[in-house]
């Protein structure tokens, strides 16, 4: 394997982007032990979450399940995608996507909670036709003669 020595370290350092290494070595092979331990942790977490779904833990379920999923996703991102050793910029870039998804989700859910009542007929009846629904006109119906 012919390794080309790139005699441009001065150039590299002066790139504003924040290059860390001037020697041209930028490969960081991950150790197999690390890869396998992450993989088995992920498998264990998968089994855990499937087992946990058979339990009836009520409203907490969504949080527990999503918590496990987040841990798994974090492992993939940090180790398999070696973000842990990557440039901080890349981490910021990826994190920003999560923030914007949260924003999107947050606003739409906030709105959905608020307009729930305009969709559910029960609530609408209570809210907009208060006194006695029986007296009220049903629309559209025909003139009674």
């Amino acid at each position: 394997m012919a390794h080309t020595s790139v005699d441009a370290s001065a150039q590299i350092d002066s790139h504003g982007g924040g290059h860390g290494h001037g020697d041209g070595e930028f490969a960081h092979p991950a150790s197999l032990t690390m890869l396998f331990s992450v993989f088995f942790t992920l498998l264990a977490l998968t089994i855990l979450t499937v087992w946990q779904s058979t339990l009836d833990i009520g409203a907490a379920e969504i949080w527990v399940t999503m918590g496990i999923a987040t841990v798994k996703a974090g492992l993939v991102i940090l180790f398999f995608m070696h973000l842990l050793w990557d440039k901080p910029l890349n981490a910021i870039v990826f994190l920003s996507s999560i923030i914007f998804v949260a924003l999107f989700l947050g606003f739409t859910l906030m709105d959905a909670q608020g307009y729930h009542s305009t969709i559910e007929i029960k609530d609408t009846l209570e809210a907009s036709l208060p006194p006695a629904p029986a007296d009220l006109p049903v629309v559209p119906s025909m003139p009674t003669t």
Partner: protein
Amino acid sequence: MRQLFLNLNELVFSLRTVEIMFFLIADQNKTFWFPEQASTFAPEVDWFFLAVTYISLAFFVLIVGFMVYFMYAYRERPGYRGSPEALHNNALEIGWTVVPTIIAVWIFYRGTIGFLDMMTIPADTRDVQVVAKKWAWSFGYPNGVIDNELHLVVNEPAKMIMRSDDVLHSLFVPAFRAKCDVVPGRYATMWFEPTKTGTYDLFCSEYCGDQHSKMGAKVVVHTKEEYDAWFTKMQIPPSDPVEYGKLLYAKTMGCASCHSIDGAKIVGPSFKGTWGGEVALAVGGTVPFDENYVRESVLNPQAKARAGYEKASLMPSYQGRLKEEQISALIAYMKSLKSE
């Protein structure tokens, strides 16, 4: 703080008289900017808009004034050299960040107060059930009275309970400064209190297809007595079937928004001169245009779509919405069109 706002309000109010002096147009009821003020919302919206406009105008004059002055004072000319050092001035920069911020906060605050008034429906309102469909409005009143005009009583708050039969529509009455989208699948509610009798325009302001521009209606604001008279009249259908059919056609059921009586093709086929003849079907062949055909087409419009009107699905089924005697009245009305 509150006091400051009030003072500002007064200031802007006095500006408003200046505005009227400047922009008075022939019609006494309308200002340069706005149509008549016919609801309780209107003074608030108009006043607030003019306030914002004059603040904006002040900024605008300032900016453009400086711009023109700089253009002149620092123009390139022989013997003149600018001094390129003036690149920064913290006080100035902070100033033009803070002042607009304060004004923006105030506009937000006032706008939200006004909005909450518009969204807070008073306890005892006169309810109108509004149905929007392509491309007509129908307004339902107590005792099953339906009309294609919105009838209201002056100085009584009215609540619209609105739904759409097909796509998005939006009920907009400029004179009331009120607007609300009608979303299919939901019940939308809005309210307003008319303050002036008269007839006003009602528009659909959410694009809804071909005849969007034609989807208007009239708002009639009555005195209490007039309203009662109108309401009593509406409860008794005409005894003459032709008259009743005409009422159903033109007003109650809104057939007129799709079917003309002068031969013009609006959305559906015209009623003119078809009675008793044969009509060609989309699938081929013809059927006689008689009682049975009309009845079937009203209840199940897709059953025998006419040639050239393959999209009969545009017409909703009137199954359950028209009674037998009403269908008969409509048929009688169609028959009468032939003899004319």
